[in-house]
């Protein structure tokens, strides 16, 4: 029997964005948070480096500079009104977090500590600026914990381990969601005035990824299946420094603290690709540089990785060469202890997974799939926009990595995702509650969970000719090979074909577990379906975009083409598996597109 619950606002996802929305929505609306993981297991907890905000605690900084860096980082694809909004709001958002109890690292005079991060600069001198507010290398962990703590304090209604499988629309408005309770296998209908999606990313479609198993793009897939487009899906960030083979992220903060990249010949190759800020260039630039080094045979021992070196002797040598100074003007020199104290978790990863001590040995790294710039299209209030005219779908909101505002454009700057979560999570929550206040409870369609039951029945009763695990492997491989750091027409065509084929084969899958209680096989297989949908849209969008911009690097179209392509992709997934593309203009306020050099 399907149970029905009624709320004003239902939030799907208990990560940073979802909890921020919950805290703000629950002030005035009856709110529930549904999450397929216990909220504290969300991937926000994995974020290491920091959250960017122009507090100016250590040196001069202005939110306008932050906005410019973000626009430039986005390769001019970010919507500038939203970017300005975010960077201005970031300052207050960080103070909010501190007031919530977040244990930021501190400066000597007791203020929130800040450090340099890729792509963040002093706009006048073009030198890196200390803008990333951090708590050692556990900033995301602290944000997630702090927000969860506040939710407990405020008695938020949590439905933990409830996986949302469908969105209910009625009369063109959001009317709730359908979820399965993992512990019982029962379906629940959450009937509500407003729905906020905050389901995180979809990086599990790539072989080498920093993303959690749970990052299967459920939110994007569910909205796609309900006729809502996905925006800019071709832009997926590859972080330059993932642990070799495992993909586990080594934060940019390691380079912020002075870490240097070396190729197999022992060269500091970033000097050639970004002469001004070198190892602190933006992520797409470095990922491509590493890829090219490897391609030219300059990986370590000719293999497909390079070294990230944060040994104190290396850091000090290059800090001297670069003339790097501390805030008080003294030369920048570090000791092993200092490094360890700033990146304790990274040290632990290296020791656990590589048996390498980062202050004694260099770390083998390779680019790793990391962050979805694209997603569910929204405006700066988190309202979901369903066409190129800015038309809002009443009652539906999205925030966090699953949403595309778009503030990250073609390439996200480090630390900006956490800003995105707290700023847009907050506004999505506020707006959803406001909307719920003025709206009536929409009519619930007859049999709202029929669609979900059909999906699950198909998986339980398929022919069994195909295995989900095999399809997943093939998907990850083709995405890595053909929709990775560099892309070509040919590769993308192949990828589209392959994903189409995999989607067909997916229909032949049958799960062996027929039980209800924690049927993880059933849900993992359902998630694979989401990945396939998101992958198809990604590959088709990428195939169509004939230019190189930010994270989307086409070998056959190596230049950015503002004339034809300064626009956002919108992709609709049709019932028959075809993808319809549309485009909408980029909002430009004060920063005219320029060539992006670092």
């Amino acid at each position, binding site marked *: 029997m399907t149970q029905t619950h009624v709320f004003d606002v239902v939030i799907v996802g208990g990560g940073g964005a979802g909890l921020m929305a919950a805290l703000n929505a629950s002030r005035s609306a009856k709110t529930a948070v549904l999450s397929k993981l216990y909220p504290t297991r969300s991937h926000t*907890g*994995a974020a290491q480096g920091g959250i960017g905000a122009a507090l100016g605690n250590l040196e001069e900084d202005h939110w306008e500079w932050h906005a410019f860096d973000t626009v430039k980082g986005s390769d001019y694809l970010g919507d500038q009104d939203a970017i300005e909004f975010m960077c201005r709001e970031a300052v207050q958002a960080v103070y909010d977090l501190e007031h*919530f*109890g977040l244990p930021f690292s501190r400066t000597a005079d*007791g203020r929130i500590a800040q450090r340099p991060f890729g792509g963040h600069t002093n706009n006048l001198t073009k030198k890196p600026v200390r803008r990333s507010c951090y708590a050692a290398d556990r900033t995301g*962990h602290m944000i997630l914990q702090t927000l969860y*703590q506040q939710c407990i304090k405020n008695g938020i209604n949590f439905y933990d381990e409830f996986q949302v499988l469908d969105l209910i629309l009625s009369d063109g408005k959001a009317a709730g969601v359908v979820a399965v309770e993992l512990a019982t296998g029962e379906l629940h209908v959450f009937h509500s005035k407003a729905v906020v999606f905050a389901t995180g990313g979809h990086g599990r479609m790539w072989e080498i990824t920093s993303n959690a198993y749970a990052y299967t793009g459920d939110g994007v897939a569910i909205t796609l299946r309900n006729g809502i487009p996905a925006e800019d899906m071709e832009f997926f960030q590859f972080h330059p420094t993932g642990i070799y083979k495992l993909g586990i992220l080594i934060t940019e903060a390691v380079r912020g603290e002075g870490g240097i990249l070396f190729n197999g010949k022992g060269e500091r190759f970033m000097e050639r690709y970004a002469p001004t800020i070198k190892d602190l260039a933006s992520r797409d630039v470095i990922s491509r540089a590493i890829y090219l080094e490897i391609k030219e045979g300059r990986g370590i021992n000719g293999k497909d990785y390079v070294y990230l070196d944060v040994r104190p002797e290396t850091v000090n040598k290059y800090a001297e060469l670069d003339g790097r100074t501390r805030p008080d003007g003294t030369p920048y020199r570090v000791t092993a202890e200092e490094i360890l104290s700033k990146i304790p978790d990274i040290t*632990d990863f290296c020791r*656990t997974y590589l048996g390498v001590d980062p202050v004694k040995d260099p770390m083998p790294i390779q680019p790793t799939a990391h962050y979805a710039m694209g997603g569910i299209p929204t405006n700066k209030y988190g309202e979901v926009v369903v066409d190129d005219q800015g038309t809002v779908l009443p009652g539906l909101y999205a925030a966090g990595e699953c949403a595309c505002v778009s503030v990250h454009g073609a390439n996200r700057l480090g630390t900006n995702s956490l800003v995105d979560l707290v700023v847009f999570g907050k506004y999505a929550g506020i707006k959803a509650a406001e909307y719920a206040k003025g709206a009536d409870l929409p009519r619930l369609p007859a049999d709202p969970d029929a669609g979900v039951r059909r999906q699950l029945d198909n998986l339980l009763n398929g022919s069994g000719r195909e295995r989900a695990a095999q399809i997943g492997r093939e998907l990850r491989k083709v995405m890595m090979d053909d929709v990775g750091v560099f892309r070509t027409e040919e590769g993308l065509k192949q990828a589209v074909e392959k994903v189409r084929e995999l989607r067909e084969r997916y229909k032949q899958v049958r799960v062996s577990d027929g039980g209800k209680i924690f049927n993880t096989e059933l849900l993992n297989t359902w998630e694979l379906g989401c990945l396939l949908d998101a992958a198809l849209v990604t590959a088709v969008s990428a195939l169509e975009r004939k230019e190189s911009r930010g994270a989307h690097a086409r070998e056959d179209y190596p230049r950015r083409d503002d004339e034809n392509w300064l626009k956002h992709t919108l992709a609709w997934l049709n019932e028959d598996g075809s993808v319809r593309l549309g485009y909408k203009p980029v909002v430009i306020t004060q920063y005219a597109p320029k060539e992006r050099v670092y």
Partner: protein
Amino acid sequence: MEVRMRIFRFNPEKDRKPHYDVFTVEAQPTDRVLDVLEWIRGDVDGTLAFRRSCAHGVCGSDAMRINGRNYLACKVLLRDLGTTEITVEPLLGLPVIKDLIVDMGPFFEHYKTVMPYLVNDELPADGKERLQSPEQRERFDDTTKCILCAACTTSCPSFWSNGQYVGPAAIVNAHRFIFDSRDQAAVERLEILNDQFGVWRCRTAFNCTEACPREIKITQAIAEVKRAIQTGRVE
């Protein structure tokens, strides 16, 4: 290398009693136990149930007993176990729901009882951050690392014998606020922990500290709380 995985199985819809299944798996010494479990679920037996998400020891989903000791399955490499005979069982002391999945409800309930949130409604006049010196921040750094994986609480003999004990994880999270110079509810929390099921249940068995994947000095934190209660000094 070839490993023999002996895995605790219990399906409440079918089994009256738990049993063990053995899977023989070809794996690399650098594979994580989680990789092996994933492979078994994907390619051999889809009905195997366990939780996981981040796969690198930061989300706290996959705490379980591996060869008799609590670990995160994603943080133990096969080569670290020193044997190819591997027994995997659910955490001890929480009700088993299915296979390696236990009911985390009681664990989170204990966590919630210790007021695990900052209490301080006074905001600085300028609306900016509250000040805190690096030393004050350092004082509670260790206990901010907790990911609520329950490896500690379910390794504690006091918790095994009496689930009413709040357990080391809850104390760790109380410690995180008690020693935060910005917080104003240290007394309330200490009073909560000064209960017959509070800190005094800790018999310093130390399994918690050994089990903690975040290397939190749990027993030390508990001792500091005990001292604060007795001496009235939070230092």
